[in-house]
């Protein structure tokens, strides 16, 4: 249970970073932390006590295997996460070229 709790704390750390940081890059890093905590959660729910990697060996019918589906989901989600992170970074670089700053307090044209 403690691992699940730590995973949730990691999520909250990321959320805290997104809300409080002022630097665009640090916001992107905090988002990545949230992302990783979600992946970790998926890896945890697939784990079965004493389980082995899910490569079925017919010689050992009583072997317990971990659930392979969450691993497949995490792989998919990592690819998606790569796309979102790289797009976010590309936009941050463009923002830096236009505004000459990473400080989010100075990037506020849009209001109301």
């Amino acid at each position, binding site marked *: 249970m403690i691992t699940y709790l730590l995973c949730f704390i990691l*999520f909250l750390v990321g*959320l805290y970073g*997104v809300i409080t940081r002022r630097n*665009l890059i640090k*916001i992107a890093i905090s*988002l990545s932390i*949230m*992302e990783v905590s*979600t992946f970790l*959660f*998926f890896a945890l*729910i697939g784990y079965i006590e004493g389980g082995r990697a899910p490569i079925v060996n017919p010689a050992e019918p009583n072997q317990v295997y971990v659930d392979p*589906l*969450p691993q497949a*989901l995490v792989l*998919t*989600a990592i690819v*998606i996460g790569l*796309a*979102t992170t790289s*797009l*976010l970074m590309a*936009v*941050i670089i*463009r*923002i830096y070229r*236009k*505004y000459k700053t990473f400080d989010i307090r100075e*990037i*506020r*044209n*849009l209001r*109301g």
Partner: protein
Amino acid sequence: MNPVIPILVIVPLACAFLSMALGRFVRDLPKYFTAVVMLFLLIASFYSLINIGTGLSLYKVGGWEPVNKIPIGIYMVLDGYSAIMLCIISTIGFLSAVYSISYINRYTGEKYYYALFCLMVAGMNGVVLSGDLFNIFVFLEISVISSYALVAFGVEKNELEASFKYQVLGGIASFLILFGIGFIYWKTKTLNIADIKEAFKTGYDKTFYVFVQLLILSGFGLKAAIMPFHAWLPDAHSSAPSPISAMLSGVFIKAVGIYVIIRLFFNMFVISEEVAILITSLGTLSMVIGVFLAIGQWDIKRLLAYHSISQMGYVILAVGTGMILISRGQNRDIAALAITGGLFHLINHAAFKGLLFLNAGAIEYRLGTRNLKEMGGLSARMPVTSATSFIASMSISGLPPFNGFFSKLIIVIACVKARFYLLAVLAVIVSIVTLASFLKLQRYAFYNKAPDKENHNIKEVASPMLFSMITLGILCFLLSLLAFPSLRESILQPAVDILMDTDTYGLKIIGM
């Protein structure tokens, strides 16, 4: 196995790839190719709407048949509800693609624009058709990532800032959704929506269940810009190129937000009264606050974006009312009426909000400004834009004989019949405030005297843009025909039946 289902997703994906690959050699190819592909999707989705009737049809990806009545592959499901959504996506998508032919030549990198456009459509079609929770997430991310890029397509200060905000909030929403999916998989050991429904029916831990529902609601609520999560919408929708604004406001927030919320809360979760009341109050909140935020706006596209929040509030209010009635187990007829009103308003909103954003785009194309105070006197110079904008404005404000009137009328009647008098009164008041706000838009943009700046060389926009606007204007009239009982029963009723069918929906899909 229905072969139309995968085609609806594969064709736009292939089009995205091909416009990138072939656009290097033939410069003008992507724009016409995209329009043709969207026309094909339009025909395919209307074909499936007519064909599906009240039935259900499945496509098992990779041909994985269920083992011992337990589905193991990815299912794609087409039913009346998703067919309606498909038609909305492809109609607005086709008209936006045609509109883009002459609009997008202001930007560089046209082929990237069309590739992203097709990816967005492919993602939305996938979300609408998918019967598997994780598959919904994957297609959602495909369409959301391309919409991030499209919002930033102008790469000026405002566009980049809007896109950054949108990406951060959208990222948080995605992780909330992913967490929710993880929790559901943890408890039920399945990702198939129909199978999860059966697992939830057998009994569940109440705290866990409410927690998961809140995670899913806040995740998709962020995508749909329901009230407490609306902050990104006005920025993103006003900064995108106008055809994309029309897509985002007219289709995107519905397909990846409202559609999924309705689908999951009716067909996957067992409806509980507390959550139904929460959804209804969130809808009422967005309906009321959205319109009051819209009143003070002078940027024409921001004004329209705030109205999107408000009009989505109507849909959620109507559907939430239906949920409350179903969960109390009383009077399913009134519940069906409320849901019909919600879905009808969903369709209508796509038509008139798409049209309004295309009008705003036409004005911006000719004047180069979005500020209402700098416009004026355009009704003589741009007669078609002015006329269609008038139709759309009256339609969104709910004046007869336009489509908005009938859907709002059905929603108000359902609220009164359900004895939620406060909601009915609020719906009418918001409609009046909407009318005031759009009279302001009409007056300042089209009828006031032009400001001192000379507007003599302003003329009507090019014919592809006119074609899209006129078609949507005609649709604003035609869609009001859906209020007639015979048409309503053949088009809206199957969708409502699918949603109301909370008991046997899962069994039907597993049994196929």
